[in-house]
């Protein structure tokens, strides 16, 4: 691994002003990535560790462990270079810089195809929740290890009986000496097996209270009362899990927000999740589709060109929409809007790839088709996770456009 002698872009020591202008910051970030981002095909290359499928939960777990190790190491390097949590306050491990600096870093990550996606809950949802609802002690305790790449987080929200309708969560947290005891079953929990903590939604009031009876907790995942059972996804990956909670313990200071404030915390969490999915460093599937058509020598076909152009239009307009949101334009229901556009883009681009690939898409062991099959089998989950497409449409209609419930 080659390390750069270029000054870390985040270092302010010796700098004239505390925060330089956008162009200057961009320049320094680019330079740092140029010297430090993993090269395609190198052992640190993120695309190489992307977890595709596995024959057994154990094999998946090993791949996942490897992926998380690489992600942790990368996050640590970002941290050491002063590029992690630019906008977070210093006492939380950040730099108190303007928000756009995080966007610059994210954009450069996207450009290089390196991602901290496995840490998305920790890096996006946890700070949103803690800055919105947590105590100072909680921020100082939980956030710095996240920035240093030490702690991964997952979300324990969905249950067999509570998917889109999260107000009907029935996992229960009962007060006990020094904290709470949690019992119930969660499902579809992404990355549960490799997370250190979870954002947990549990019932602290009665069933009849509905959403008013919910509270949010920070739950340590490594403890006796937690049983994690991987579930196999259609792609062959064991990405999400069933999580059985049997008198799992949360200390008193693990309650996030007030008792019974779970719904408000959840809304913050889901909003940041939508924004993270819709606004994040999306896979450049249009660019890759164009590359695929060129490789296959079918890029002169007008039908193929039309598919390529449609993908380019979806991808660029979504990027531009994000840029408008960042520039302060009023976009009703911005989070659900970008999330839905992103899931549509993923679905339609994977579908376009099947048209371009032809028979090759029937073979998983064809190196050209493999990454597209992965996307093809990943896209259905994107339409569900983080709130289904239908729920996003409801939210856009009701909160964005003001239609009656």
């Amino acid at each position, binding site marked *: 691994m080659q390390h750069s002698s270029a000054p870390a872009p985040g270092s302010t020591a010796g700098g004239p002003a505390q925060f330089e202008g956008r162009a200057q910051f961009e320049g320094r970030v680019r330079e740092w990535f140029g010297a430090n981002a993993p090269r395609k095909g190198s052992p640190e290359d993120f695309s190489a560790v992307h977890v595709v499928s596995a024959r057994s939960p154990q094999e998946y777990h090993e791949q996942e462990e490897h992926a998380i190790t690489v992600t942790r190491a990368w996050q640590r390097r970002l941290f050491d270079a002063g590029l992690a949590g630019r906008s977070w306050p210093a006492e939380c491990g950040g730099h108190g810089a303007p928000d756009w600096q995080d966007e610059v870093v994210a954009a450069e990550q996207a450009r290089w195809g390196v991602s901290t996606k496995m840490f998305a809950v920790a890096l996006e949802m946890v700070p949103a929740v803690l800055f919105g609802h947590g105590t100072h002690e909680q921020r100082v305790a939980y956030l710095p290890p996240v920035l240093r790449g030490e702690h991964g987080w997952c979300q324990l929200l969905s249950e067999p009986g509570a998917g889109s309708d999260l107000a009907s969560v029935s996992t229960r947290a009962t007060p006990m000496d020094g904290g709470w005891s949690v019992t119930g079953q969660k499902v579809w929990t992404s990355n549960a097996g490799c997370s250190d903590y979870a954002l947990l939604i549990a019932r602290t009031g009665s069933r009849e209270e509905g959403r008013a009876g919910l509270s949010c907790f920070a739950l340590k995942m490594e403890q006796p009362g937690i049983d994690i059972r991987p579930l196999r996804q259609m792609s062959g990956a064991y990405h999400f899990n069933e999580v059985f909670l049997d008198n799992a313990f949360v200390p008193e200071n693990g309650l996030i927000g007030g008792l019974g404030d779970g719904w408000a915390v959840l809304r913050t969490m889901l909003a940041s999740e939508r924004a993270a999915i819709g606004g994040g460093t999306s896979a450049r599937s249009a660019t890759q589709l164009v590359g695929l058509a060129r490789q296959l020598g079918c890029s002169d076909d007008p039908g193929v*060109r039309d598919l390529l152009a449609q993908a*380019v239009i979806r991808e660029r307009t979504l990027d531009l929409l994000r*840029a408008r949101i960042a520039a302060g334009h009023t976009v009703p229901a911005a989070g659900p*809007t970008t999330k839905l556009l992103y899931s549509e883009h993923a679905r339609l681009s994977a579908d376009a790839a099947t048209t371009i690939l032809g028979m090759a898409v029937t073979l998983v062991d064809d190196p050209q088709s493999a990454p597209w099959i992965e996307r093809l089998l990943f896209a259905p989950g994107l339409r569900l996770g983080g709130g289904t497409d239908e729920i996003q449409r*409801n939210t*856009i*209609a009701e909160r964005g*456009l*003001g*239609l009656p419930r």
Partner: protein
Amino acid sequence: MNLAFTQEQTELRRTVRDFLDKTSPEAEVRRLMETADGYDPDVWRQLAGELGIAGLTLPEEYGGAGCGFVELGVVLEEAGRSLLCAPVLSTVVLAASTLLGLGDDAACHDYLPGIADGTTLATLALTEAAGRWDDADGITATAARDGQDQGRGWTVSGRKAFVLDGHTASLLLVVARTGAGLSVLAIDAGAPGVHRVPRATLDQTRRQADITFTAAPARLLGEEGAAWPVLERVLDLAAVAVAAEQVGGAARVLDMAVDYARTRVQFGRPIGSFQAVKHKLADLHLGVESARSAAYHGLWTAAGDLPDLPLAASLAKACCGDAYVTAATENIQVHGGIGVTWEHPAHLYLKRAHSSRQLFGHPAHHRQRLARYVLAEQAATASPA
């Protein structure tokens, strides 16, 4: 690219919207649809004079305001929202951009001040019977020197079709062929040998004419045979301009559909509470916001005179043209029976959407062009890693 509007641009939007709310309400649009000229000269004088719209993007030396394309886009978005019946696209976008682009100083001095102060209506006569905007080789109109005017005079012969505001423009900028290639020539609409036939347009808020030239006296603009690259750029600017207009129209019909869905009651509840309706409107919202993003990107690219204007123009035109047609179509569906009546404004927007989708290239054409650019771009640049 920072897509933030300045305070002046936001104020301009407010001013234009207030003005158009007063001067271009639906009743006025309907009145003008039935007139022969299809626009209100008084309103045009005010637009040109008080609001300075006609000369908005023209340099100050020609009586213009020296603003950029973003400002023009703001005006067009508002104009599209209110279906303004006025020769903005023909005079301000097509003709003025062509004159500026050709770089003929004398012609600019002669014609642009009249455009800026609203006294000259002008248009570009490019398309012929096939209705194609991109087909340089297909242009058959010819220009020839006529020996008059100490050998500096020219004549033009041929037939132009789909000429925007061709029935009212006094200055016609005609694309014609000589041995040297394509040139643009200025022709006085009242000159001998000019025969104009107004056509009955699907979109009655924007008119067209066929124009036949029979050895009509003409003035060559710029260099002989050098017009096509200039026109390509003009068409890109026009595509961006019409995209901004389309966004205004699409957003307006979405508002219309949302308002109706909130108030129309069936089965004892507002139809907007039915998910089939909600989801349709949510999808239109995605289309409108995507289109707006593409259009604004086009405006900023044009304003900054950036090299990827062709790509930005195709992105904008491909995206906005379809988004508008979809929104206008579904707006009618949400309205039910009333939506297909003449009385209801929904069809006015549907007609504008369909006719403006064809202008300066259909989305299908722009998608082909976009794919060409992106393929070339990818062939030229290696990925960073």
